C-alpha cells in the first residue's frame, strides 16, 4: 500500500487554517474566562482540524452552510477575524451588524451563506444553493456541516434523498464529535456509523478520521471533485471529538473520564504538529505562523471591543427590504 501523500503547500495551508481556528477558540475562551466577554459560545476544541482540512479542499467561491458550532468552519473558510469577533460580541462592526451572533454568522464574500441554530436544518438549504449552481452551471460546490445528532432529524433524510435524486453538487459533512448535547452517540443512534445511512439513499459515503490531516483533506477533495464533475453528492462522516462541554462553561461530567483521556491522545493539534515536523517543517516555522496568528487574534479582540453596539433603529431594518415603521 502506498503511503498517503500531500502537497507541502497544502499541508502548510491546512496547518495555518487549523491554528487560526485553534488560536481563535483559545482567545474566545480566555475572553470569557476573564469576563471581557459574556455571550453564549460553542467551543470547537477538538474539532479544529476537521474543518481546516475540509475547507482547504474548497475554493473560496464555494458555498458553506454550518451550525451554531461552526466557528471552526467559518474561520477555516476564510471569514475575516475582525468582523467575526465583533459579531460574536454583538457589535455593529460584526459580519451581521450584531444581529446574528455566533449562531447566525453569514458572510457571503467568503461563501458562508447560512449558519443555523436549528439542528439539521442546514441540509435542505445547502441543496438549494447547490441546485442554483447546477442550473447556472457555475461550477460551485456547496458544503454543509452538521453534527452526529443532526442525522436523526427528518430534514437530514429529506435532504439526502433529494440531493441524490437530483445529483446536486453538495457535500454533507457530518462532524461526528460523539455527542449531541449530553447524549452520547450510542444513546441516540442505532447504527454503528452515520455513513451507513448514505447507502439508504444510494449515495456515496465515506468514513474518515477527522484528526488525520491527510486523510481528511484527500477524502474531502475527492468528494468535492466528484460534485464538481456532476457526479452528485457525498456524505462524509468525519470522526472527531468534542473535548469540552456542549457550550463553553457547561458541565460535562457525563462524558466518561477514561474516554476523555483516550480522546486526548487523539487531540488533532499535537498530532498535526507532529505531522508537520515529519514533513520537514521546522519548529521555528510553525511557531512563527502561530505568533503571527496570535497578533491577529489580539487585533480582532480589540476591534470587537472598540466596535459600537448596534442602535435600536437596527430593529426596523432588514425585516423586509423596506424599513418598517417604528
Amino acid at each position: 500500500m502506498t503511503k498517503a501523500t500531500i502537497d507541502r503547500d497544502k499541508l502548510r495551508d491546512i496547518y495555518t487554517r487549523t491554528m487560526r481556528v485553534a488560536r481563535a477558540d483559545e482567545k474566545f475562551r480566555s475572553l470569557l474566562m476573564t469576563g471581557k466577554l459574556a455571550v453564549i459560545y460553542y467551543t470547537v476544541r477538538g474539532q479544529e482540524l476537521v474543518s481546516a482540512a475540509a475547507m482547504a479542499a474548497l475554493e473560496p467561491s464555494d458555498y458553506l452552510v454550518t451550525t451554531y458550532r461552526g466557528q471552526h468552519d467559518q474561520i477555516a473558510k476564510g471569514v475575516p477575524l475582525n468582523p467575526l469577533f465583533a459579531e460574536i460580541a454583538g457589535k455593529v462592526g460584526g459580519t451581521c451588524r450584531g444581529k446574528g451572533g455566533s449562531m447566525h454568522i453569514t458572510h457571503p464574500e467568503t461563501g458562508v451563506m447560512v449558519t443555523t441554530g436549528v439542528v439539521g436544518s442546514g441540509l435542505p438549504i445547502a441543496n438549494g444553493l447547490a441546485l442554483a449552481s447546477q442550473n447556472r452551471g457555475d461550477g460551485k460546490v456547496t458544503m454543509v456541516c452538521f453534527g452526529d445528532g443532526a442525522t436523526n432529524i427528518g430534514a437530514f433524510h429529506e435532504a439526502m434523498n433529494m440531493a441524490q435524486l437530483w445529483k446536486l453538487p453538495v457535500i454533507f459533512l457530518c462532524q461526528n464529535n460523539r455527542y449531541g448535547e449530553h447524549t452520547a452517540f450510542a444513546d441516540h443512534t442505532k447504527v454503528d456509523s452515520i455513513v451507513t445511512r448514505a447507502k439508504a439513499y444510494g449515495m456515496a459515503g465515506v468514513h474518515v478520521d477527522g484528526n488525520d490531516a491527510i486523510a481528511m483533506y484527500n477524502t474531502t477533495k475527492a468528494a468535492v471533485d466528484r460534485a464538481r464533475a456532476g457526479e452528485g453528492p457525498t456524505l462524509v462522516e468525519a470522526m472527531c471529538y468534542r473535548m469540552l462541554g456542549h457550550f463553553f462553561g457547561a458541565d460535562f461530567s457525563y462524558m466518561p473520564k477514561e474516554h476523555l483521556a483516550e480522546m486526548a491522545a487523539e487531540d488533532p493539534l499535537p498530532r498535526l504538529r507532529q505531522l508537520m515536523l515529519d514533513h520537514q517543517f521546522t519548529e521555528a516555522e510553525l511557531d512563527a505562523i502561530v505568533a503571527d496568528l496570535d497578533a491577529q487574534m489580539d487585533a480582532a479582540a480589540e476591534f470587537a471591543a472598540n466596535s459600537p453596539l448596534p442602535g435600536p433603529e437596527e430593529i426596523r431594518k432588514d425585516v423586509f427590504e423596506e424599513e418598517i415603521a417604528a
Partner: protein
Amino acid sequence: MSAQITMTQAINRAIDEAMAEDEGVILLGEDVAAKQGGGVFKISAGLTEKYGEHRVRATPISEQAIVGACVGAALAGFRPIAEIMLMNFVTVAMDQIVNHAAKLRFMSGGQTNVPLVIRTTTGVGVGFGGQHSDMLEAWFAHVAGLKIVTPSNAADAQGLMRAAIACNDPVIFIENILCYGLKSDDPGPGHFVPLGKAAIAREGSDCSIVTYGRTVLDALEIAGKLADEGISVEVIDLRTIAPYDEATVTASVEKTGRAVVLHEAVKQYGTGAEIASRLNEKLFGKLKAPVTRIGGAFSAVPMANALEQAWIPNKDAIADAVRTAVNWKG
C-alpha cells in the same frame, strides 16, 4: 364582451411570464412537472414543456426539503416558487419558513435575502375535512419577515403573483380552491398588482367590511342585499394580508364609522383580531359601533357538508353583524 380568464389560467400566466423573463424563476413542488400532470390543480400545466425539468422540478414528498431548497436557491440569487400542495402541509415545513426564510435577511444584517414565493392552496367547502382545509395566515402574520398575499379574483391573482415573484422578500401566496374557476376580465399580459395595496371592492358609506380571499365574494353579495334595505356597505379587499394596507382600511372605517372584519380562518387569535384592535387604537371616539369580527368556528373543519357549511362564516350572520353595527345605540 371582453375576454375572460380564470384564476387558474391567471396564476399560470403570471408564472409563465416571470419564467420567460428570468432564468432564476424556478418551480419546485410535488407533481408540478408535465410528467406528473402539471400539479394537482394544474397551475403549472405547460411550464415544463417551455422551461424544462431543471426549472420545473417535481419533488419527492418532502416539504422541508422543498422549502429548504427554495431558501437556498433564493440565497444564491434565484427567485424560486415552492408549491405546497395544501396549506395544512406547511406545518411540515414550518422551520424552513419561520426560522429561515423569514429571518435570514435580518439575522445576516441585510447581507442576504430570500426572494421566495410559497404558493399554497386551501379552502372550506369542498369536503376535505380537518387536515386539508385550514387557513393558517395568522400563524405567518405573527412572524416578522413574511408577506402574505391572497387574491379574491382572477385578475388580481395574476397581478399579485407577478408582484410576489418580483418581491425581494419571502411571500406566502394563498389560493382558495373554490376560487380557481372564478373568471375576471382578462387584464392582459404584464399585469402587476402591487403588494401591500388593498382594493376598495365596493364603495359604501354606512359600514366597512374588511376581508380578503374568498369571503370577498360573500361580502360583495351581502353588500348588494343590504343596499336593498338602504344600508350602504363598503367592501375592502386587503389582497395583502401582511403587512396590510392600514391606511386604506383606516380611511374607510373613519368614513363609515363602522367595521366588520371577516375571514374564513377561525376567529380566535386570527388576523381579524389584529385589524379590529388597530382600528380601535386609531379611531377610538370616532367609531359609531364596536368593530366586530366574523370568522370560522373554533373546531377542526368538519367533513360532512351540512357541518362544513355551519362551520364557515354564514352570510346571514355577516349581514346581521352589519345591521347590528348600523343600528348600534351605544
